[in-house]
Each structure stands twice: as C-alpha cells, then as structure tokens.
C-alpha cells in the first residue's frame, strides 16, 4: 500500500503527483503486481483533495497499462516498472562514470547538470505529460 503526499505549492498538478508517486513506489518495489492501490475514498480522507483528481490519476495509470480497475474490488497493480536492479551492468557503468567525473574535478551540481542534459537528449519529455492542468 502507498500513501500519497500532496504538495499544493509544488506547481505540479495534483493528479500528476499521484501518478508520479505511484510510479516511484513501483520502481522502488514498494508496490508489486497484484497489490491494491488505496481507494479514492481513502486517499481523499487523508489528503482532503477532490475525489475526481484521484480518479483522473488512476485512469492515467490505467491508460499506461500499469494498473487495472476491477469492478467493485478496487484498482490493482498490473505490472512493475522495469528498472535496472542494484546489481545490473548499467548501474556498474554509471558508477564507473561517476567516479571518473569526480576524478576529473566535477562537483555534484556539474554532474547533475551533465546527466540531466544527456537524459533530456535521449529521453525527451512527453509534452502531454508535462502540460498537466491544475486539477
């Protein structure tokens, strides 16, 4: 089970915060296939946000194939998010790269900027997702 934390000042649409936090929980293995998401009632009772916002977030997760709504039962995780596990070769390569960056004298912010720039180049941000409304 996950618990959502809504930051009303973040500027990120509330439904997107729920989508992002669910994905994060999937990546971290806090949610696994078969797990049930909290009901809309449970989420709004704890966060005081509008029920339609929760339903919108769940619809979006469903559209992406991550969860499925089972009538009368709730919303369940369909599949996890494939991430490289801690011992994968990709992670090892990134560690080597980070070591080299440090040796070359780069600071944390320099590394973050470099990484983000490459990330943006290879994984362009989906326009539909970045332009969330204020729900």
């Amino acid at each position, binding site marked *: 089970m996950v618990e959502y934390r809504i930051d009303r000042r973040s500027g990120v649409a509330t439904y997107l915060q729920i989508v992002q936090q669910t994905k994060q929980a999937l990546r971290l293995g806090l949610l696994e296939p078969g797990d049930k998401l909290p009901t809309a*009632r449970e989420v709004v*009772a704890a966060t005081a946000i*509008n029920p*339609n*916002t*929760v339903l919108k977030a769940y619809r979006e997760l469903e559209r992406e194939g991550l969860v499925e709504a089972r009538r009368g039962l709730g919303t369940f995780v369909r599949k996890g998010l494939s991430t490289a596990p801690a011992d994968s070769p990709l992670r090892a390569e990134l560690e080597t790269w980070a070591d080299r960056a440090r040796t070359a004298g780069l600071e944390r912010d320099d590394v973050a900027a470099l990484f983000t720039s490459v990330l943006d180049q290879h994984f362009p941000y989906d326009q539909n997702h970045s332009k969330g409304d*204020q729900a």
Partner: protein
Amino acid sequence: MTDTAIEAAGLGRTFGRRRRARALHACTFRLPAGRVCAVVGPNGAGKSTLLALAAGLLRPTEGTVTVLGTTPAAARERVAYVAQGKPLHPQLTVADTLRMGRDLNPRRWDAATAGRVVADGDLDPDAKVRTLSGGQRTRVALALALGKRPELLLLDEPMADLDPLARHQLMGTLMADAAEHGTTIVMSSHVIAELEGSCDHLLLVGGGRVRLAGPVDDLLAAHTLVTGPAGDLAPHTVVESRTTGRQLTALVRPAGPLGEDWQAGDPTLEELVLAHLRSPDAPALTLTDERQEAAA
C-alpha cells in the same frame, strides 16, 4: 437522480421594507451533480443569500432556482444545509443531538456515518453542546448534515472557526463522503487557499452578481497571466492590468495566440480570484461543463 444539482435563472433577492437592498441580482448558472463547488466572494457579496435560496430558507424576489430537479421546498429531504452560525441546541448532549437527527430523518438517517464524524473528533457523547468549542460544534453540525445522507450539501463558511488540523480533517471527511456517495457539495469561504485542490467547480459572486462560474480547470485554462512591455492588449479580454515603468503585468482571457513579446504563465486559483476581486468591472464569465454535456 438528476444530473443538475442547482440551476439558477435570473435569480435575485432583495431585502428591506421597500425591497431596496439588493443582495443578489440576475444570477444565472448551473451546477452539475457530483461536483464540489466553492462559492467565493467578498463580505456582503451575496454568498449566504445564494445558499439560503438554494436551501429554500429564502424565497427569491426575482427569477427561479431549481434544486435536484425540483423546487427547493420539494428537495428539502435530500438537501442538508449548515448555516454559518452552526445553530444547535446548546442544552442537548452530542449523543442527544445525533438522536434528534435520527428522529427528524427517519427514512434517511445513517447513524454509522454521523457517529464516525463525531468519533473522529474525539468528542465525548455526553458533553453538552454549549460546552463545546467552535470547531467541535462544527463537527457536530457536519455529523448531523452528513448523517442525513444528503444528495446536496450546502455549507456556509464551514471552516471559519477551525484550526488548521481540524480544517484538514473535516475537508477530508467531506471529500470521503463525496467519493463514497457522489454527494454534491457547495461551500462558501473567503479563504481561497483552503479550497484549492478540494473544489472542482467555482462560483465567484461579487456585488450580488455571478462573476465567474464553471469548472475550476476550465476557468483557469481560459485565463493567462502575461508580463511584457507596456502596450495594447487588444483583442484579448483584460481582467486586470498593472503598469510598472515600461513593464505591464496583466490577467487576460486570450482571444487567440499571444504575441511573441509576452511572457505567459498559468494563474493559480487564488490569483484568478484575487484579480477578479480587485477589478469589480471585469466582464463576467460563465463556462458550462463540457464533459457533462458530452456525456448527456
């Protein structure tokens, strides 16, 4: 069940012996069922009058209001209304008050819901209402209103005397009821920040008229905050504009793409409401719920 919670057509109300004091005039709007609607506006704008008209406690002096597809009087059993002062019997205990709710609403009373609202506030059932704090009284009043299992819940300044924790808890209780039963909730408030995120529909009243009405998302999308060099904003509708030196800041309703010179941003609900409150002469805007129309 009807898909319209409240429909007002040319609705108005005057007070006083010669009907000179006009509290509300020519209000036309439609609130779809299942929404959580914020009624905002300055003091004396007509918020309480509007809620009392919908509750059937006042009769209109002009126009009509339809509630849940019928007259406010005929809909009374399906409507709960909590007045600003939360009137309760001071000598009754909390438990007595809930028993009264059960006796007054024999066919509809949901003792479990009413009991839960009271229990969540750690209230002693044997405490007399007169010994309760303002926040505790609000909780008892909301327990009575929710125990009736209304289709439409009208709340006049429900959060006014609550501390931040109690506000959050009670708003959570209201949202949970809306999620579970599809209750339409209409609440008035001056504190816009506490409504943002909870309300999906807005009714802004000012000077006795409806200034903005519609789904919050659509109203926000219809407005843009622009900054740029001082100049003419035509053909866009200007709600509010300020010039500082060579720079102009404005809230507009764009009538087409904005020029390259302008930096555009999305307003927050608070910015939208404040801009309209500062500019009483800005034209009114009513948006209908397209999703609802499409489904119908």
